């Protein structure tokens, strides 16, 4: 939009309490207004006509995650997730891994939101027992159900196969071997496909490691620092003007930089 246009539009915008001003109302606009009234008297349509439906300072931000405690996981479940994500993306000489980057908090909070219930997905039946591999997600289980049932099946499996030990008590080598078996679907849990649990945790771990820190993971932008992603700077004209040069500025997240890490 032109600058002139924008100020004209702001001038045109009327706060909700004011009545819109119409000068020189023609027969056509009278008719239009009449139609509008008839429409809005009964219908709950959101009607947009003559001005943009825009209010100053109106945006739709996400609620920042405040770390601490678990909203979905039990303490035992959270401990297992911590142990798993720590094997998937370990803390090593290259920097923090998923556990230290807050990925368990990320997953916990994601599971309490619309993602955790597949709220936006098509979840009507019938659910096929034998979908084609090309047909994608066909399970009636939501992520919340997958985690709850999957972690219970993993706990039972560990108890039965590691002399009563829990996943968190296994050695690093034992954990990796079990996870690799789950990834391939070779490990058989009672009543739940091990691969489904692995895939859910794996996808959410990568998400949590690289998503904006506002969601509770990627603490101190550890994931972004690992690869050199500068975050949400939203202006890289200087980079395009200097091809093949290393990027040296630190990353920035939606909530900025300095403030991150303060609890």
């Amino acid at each position, binding site marked *: 939009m032109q600058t002139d246009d924008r100020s004209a539009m702001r001038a045109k915008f009327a706060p909700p309490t004011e009545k819109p001003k119409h000068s020189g109302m023609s027969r056509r606009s009278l008719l239009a207004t009449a139609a509008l009234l008839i429409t809005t008297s009964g219908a709950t349509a959101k009607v947009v006509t003559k001005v943009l439906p825009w209010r100053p300072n109106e*945006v739709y931000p996400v609620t920042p995650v405040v770390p601490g405690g678990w909203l979905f996981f039990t303490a035992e479940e959270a401990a297992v997730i911590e142990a798993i994500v720590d094997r998937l993306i370990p803390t090593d000489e290259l920097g923090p891994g998923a556990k230290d980057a807050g990925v368990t908090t990320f997953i916990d909070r994601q599971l309490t939101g619309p993602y955790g219930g597949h709220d*936006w997905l098509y979840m009507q039946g019938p659910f096929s027992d034998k979908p084609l591999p090309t047909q994608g997600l066909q399970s009636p289980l939501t992520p919340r159900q997958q985690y709850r049932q999957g972690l219970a099946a993993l706990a039972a499996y560990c108890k039965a196969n590691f002399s009563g030990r829990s996943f968190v008590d296994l050695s690093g080598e034992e954990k990796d071997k079990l996870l690799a078996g789950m990834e391939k679907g070779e490990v058989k849990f009672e009543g739940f496909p091990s691969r489904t649990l692995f895939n859910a945790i794996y996808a959410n771990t990568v*998400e949590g490691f690289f998503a904006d820190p506002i969601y509770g993971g990627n603490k101190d932008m550890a994931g972004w620092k690992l690869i050199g992603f500068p975050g949400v700077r939203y202006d890289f004209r200087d980079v395009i003007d200097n091809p093949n040069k290393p990027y040296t500025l630190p990353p920035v997240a939606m909530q900025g930089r300095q403030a991150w890490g303060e609890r």
Partner: protein
Amino acid sequence: MARRLPRKDVVIVGLGWTGSILALELARAGLEVVAIERGPWRDTATDFNIGTAPDELRYAVRHDIFLRPRQETLTMRNNSSQTALPIRRWGSFLPGNGVGGAGSHWNGQTWRFLPDDFRLRSHMIDRYGEKIMPEGHQIQDWPMSYDELEPFYDEFERCLGISGKAGNLKGQIQSGGNPFEGQRSSEYPTPPLKQGYSQELFMKAASGMGLHPFPRPSANISSAYTNQYGCSMAPCTYCGFCERFGCSNYSKSSPQTCVLPALVREPNFEARTECEVTKVNLSGDGKMATGVVYVDANGEEWEQPADLVLLCAYGLFNVRLMLLSGIGKAYDPNTGEGVVGRNYAYQTGSGATAFFDNVNFNPFAAAGSLGAALDDYNSDNFDHGPHGFVGGASITNAHTNGRPIMYHPTPRGTPTWGSAWKKAVRDTYQRVTNVGAQGSVMSYRANYLDLDPTYKDQYGRPLMRMTFDFQPNEIKMANWMAERCEEIAKAMGAKTTQINRLNTPWNVVPYQSTHNTGGTVTGSDPKTSVLNRYLQSWDVPNVFVMGASTFPQNAGYNPTGTVGALTYWALDAIKSKYLKSPGALVQQ
């Protein structure tokens, strides 16, 4: 029972690119226009605010602004011997939702199809004989030529402020542009975007091989621009949040940026959002549309009578609305008769990944349409004789973004997790690029759309069923293109390369392309098309259908440029012919 509202001259279903352009132009022509949109109103300042927009998880991964499958989805299968199941979560393609439609979240690659694409069938048969045509194909010529559409391509590009470099100005080949393109009446509205380091390598390597690279046309625009409606845009900042996102900078052409600010000021225009059109009503004899029925946010049903019904939803949903409303005869793959749902097509993706040493590609400094392309292997720009396939691909080197949840490539054979994975992710991010081939998909008897017998939407109406797979012709073409891509990748100086052949069968999970075409195709013969050359229904002449569902088959390009050109072309016919004398614009 639907309550009846006062009549309008025009009702528009869906307020994306095609709906907003038609609404603006017809309102300015003095008509009373109402647009009915099932998603919410969306505006740059609120919905695509810079403080919230660059959020990969929310928009790219969780699909915040897309159509939610709970509201509507499709069922899919690869062939008609299988049982279709619902696409419960979007993957292969991502339909938009809300005001702006997919025009809010697209990358912005804005192509013109080539002159040969519009007469593909006759051109290929003339040059190579019938034997080159693939088995089971239903390839057909478009009912209009490139030259007829050219002024309307131009108009759409001026609306969007497209950045690029002409390769053929009024028949004169221009250096720096695409020498294969059809003649253009004018230069692009704005100069091309700056290119990154990998495009520099690509252009040099391709030129050295005798190919003809050029900066691809882009709706992420390079400089400030004001269009014919007085809507202004700002230069792109290469932020790398384009596809799956709205643009905070007013730099990516979208209905929000290019049309709506002018449209809302038209006093005889009204938009009703969060209202879903469920049906087009027909007169008793079925020969005229009397309006539409829609359901508002409270589930109440309304009838909106109108003289002219313009279907401007995403192409797939236009097809479904035609099927649900009984406009035109539904396609029957067993007999080959019927037309609605016929000639569904898509897009191929193949190419090569190129790994370098000691480079900084800075993939995050990017734009959805930033990239260098070449058309030497597109359409019939090369001799198909030795290859035995129809079609072609645009070949591109591009970085559209470096957003790390979805973009953290590693060489094949890398462990999928653990310290070795972490190291590979770190070491690869800056030194990998891709040479990709976006290829055409022909139309076949076996690929089609119809209504699903089992699955329903929230109102109990059948979902649409997609029966689609890549056919041998497309597999052959795409895999040949992947080899061409690998040659270029090697010439760029890659230390190692990986070839990426077409994934088959078609799988709904990995994202491929939101370039779903066909189903309500335009043509010269009512037996093989739903719409005449003005995108007017053969059966119900006060219904016009916009979008890529009108393509007889798909070309090796992104569809939006052609969708826009067709919109202005149909608009011209509506204004200059239909409004003067309502009725069929082409006699059967």
